[in-house]
């Protein structure tokens, strides 16, 4: 049982990292960034290529992956979303799903469909505490994601750009009247969200030892479910939602058959939408007129 909790925590913290990107972008733009799962995938690929550079330590490879994904995220916003910011929601949504398909298939064309192994840059050790078994991956995933989330918390709550982000999320027009460069804030939001997704991509790619072009789809969807569960637009909500989803999935697989792994997430989505659509920490979803 305790073992399952640990597994759920590691899986959940990667969902939380992905969910943060969704929730931050949704917070400022009210848009589901469908290409977020692809950013996660590109992050994993970038990390894989960076880790193949001889002599490069793993944290540096992780940083390269995060930086690369941040650039991709900003580019996506610039090309596919910014021209449509004033457009009906449907247009931006279609553009987003188009971008997601485009990026996935571009990667497929460039990198090929085969699954690549992720070389492990350190020695994998196993620890046992009583009957609990933990390996280096679990520790790495937990430490990295908790570290990133703490960093994000300080960025959003204390830094000037974080304040600007919160102001933009609250009211874009008023924020721009107060002298905030909204475009810059939105680009920054995409950069941060994408970097977090890339970190998740590298960690998952390494843990499962598999990186391939369509790897972003399911984690992308589940990241969104986690964001909805916690309350779309809420940063602590995304963290809690991710961990809860990871727990539920691990428990569900232990109880049911593993084929239903993906169905659990969507069952949760349906339940949340039926019972409390605003999620655990969500505010009022009612549209302002």
């Amino acid at each position, binding site marked *: 049982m305790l073992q399952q909790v640990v597994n759920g925590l590691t899986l959940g913290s990667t969902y939380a990292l992905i969910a943060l990107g969704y929730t931050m972008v949704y917070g400022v733009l009210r*848009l*589901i960034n*469908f290409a977020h799962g692809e950013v996660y995938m590109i992050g994993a690929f970038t990390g894989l290529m960076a880790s193949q550079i001889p002599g490069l330590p793993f944290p540096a490879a992780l940083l390269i992956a995060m930086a690369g994904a941040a650039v991709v995220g900003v580019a996506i916003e610039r*090309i*596919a979303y910014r*021209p*449509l910011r*004033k*457009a*009906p*929601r*449907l*247009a*931006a*949504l*279609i*553009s987003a*799903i*188009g*971008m*997601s*398909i*485009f*990026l*996935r*298939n*571009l990667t*497929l*064309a460039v990198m090929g469909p085969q699954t690549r192994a992720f070389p492990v840059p350190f020695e994998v050790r196993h620890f046992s505490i009583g009957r609990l078994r933990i390996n280096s991956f679990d520790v790495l995933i937990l430490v990295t994601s908790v570290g990133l989330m703490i960093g994000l918390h300080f960025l959003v709550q204390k830094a000037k750009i974080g304040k600007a982000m919160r102001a933009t999320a609250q009211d874009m*027009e008023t924020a721009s009247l107060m002298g905030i460069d909204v475009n810059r804030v939105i680009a920054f939001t995409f950069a941060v969200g994408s970097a977090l997704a890339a970190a998740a991509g590298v960690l998952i790619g390494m843990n499962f030892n598999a990186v391939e072009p369509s790897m972003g*789809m*399911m984690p992308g*969807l589940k990241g*969104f*479910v986690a964001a*909805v569960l916690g309350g779309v637009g809420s940063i602590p909500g995304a963290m809690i939602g991710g961990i809860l989803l990871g727990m539920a999935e691990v428990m569900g697989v232990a109880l049911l058959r593993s*084929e239903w792994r*993906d*169905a659990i*997430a*969507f069952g949760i*989505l*349906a339940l949340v*939408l*039926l019972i409390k*659509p605003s999620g655990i920490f969500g505010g009022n*979803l*009612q*549209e302002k*007129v």
Partner: protein
Amino acid sequence: MISPYYYQLLVITCINVIMALSLNLVTGCAGQLSLGHAAFMGIGAYTAGILTSVYGVPFLLALIAGGVSAALFGLIVGLPTLRLKGDYLAIATLGFGEIIRVTILNMKITGGAFGLRGIAKEANLATAAAAVFLAYWTLMRLMKSRFGRALTAIREDEVAAGAMGIDITRHKVLAFVIGAAWAGIAGGLFAHWFRYLNPSSFAFARSVEILSMVVLGGMGSLEGPVIGAVVLTYAPEILRGASDFVSRYRMFFYGAILVIMMLVRPQGLVGAGVFRNGLRLPEIHGLRGSKARRMQGPKLRTQETAKDSQQHAFAKGLGAAMPGGHRKGSTGTGVRQRGGDQHADS
């Protein structure tokens, strides 16, 4: 007689046209993005295929049963997600499509990954064409009815539509269920033409293909989805000989089509069709342009706010804000600004 190759291509075109038309009702008319339309096609295909091959049900009855079962699933997916404002339907349908595919893969009666074999070849060009005409006719009647106008109003501004007394959830769910039903019927045709079903035929890629047809042709119009379906069914066949890359990376182009159309021509290739067919706008448009201005006198030209609210009333009443109108939008949100801008430009 035409060669078997072209005959088959025509049948596939018919199936794709039905799919595009039915998705158009949900996405084009009601403005709700559905990314799992192929799943409904799959439900219809498997239901009809199993009914005829295992239970010996007559073809037409099985076709209708396929449509009904797809509609039922549409209700199950639509009810929780369409109650809310927002983009939950897109995610829910995307996830639903995957779950349906996995479920079919793991069921016994569907043949799992080996697929369902031994379906009789009941469909032909005549039945497929008849289904297209029936779909076109019913959807045309629907779009021109009070129900269709209510959907347009919901697409343009949900809050305003609700204030006008339209039951938003009921309309959205109904549109979604009707769209799912026609997708199920298209699936039944598919099953009885190809005589073999495989879950991968109804995966996410197929949903994207259909969405690309609707977007390319023109959302919200009647001709748009038809033209989009014809173009995107034939283009890969024509280009197949020319370049290996095109047929290999079809999805790459679909993704690009979706983004580029939204940026450059969101109303689609024949987007103007919305106005000609749906709401007969040109006449009224003329009124808006010159007569309305004369009627209102100088007040319109001097007072920006008055002008805006006038346009607002016009645009709202007629559902005039077209999908393409947004490019001229400057600040603010909603129909008000879009309607106003359109007018200012015309």
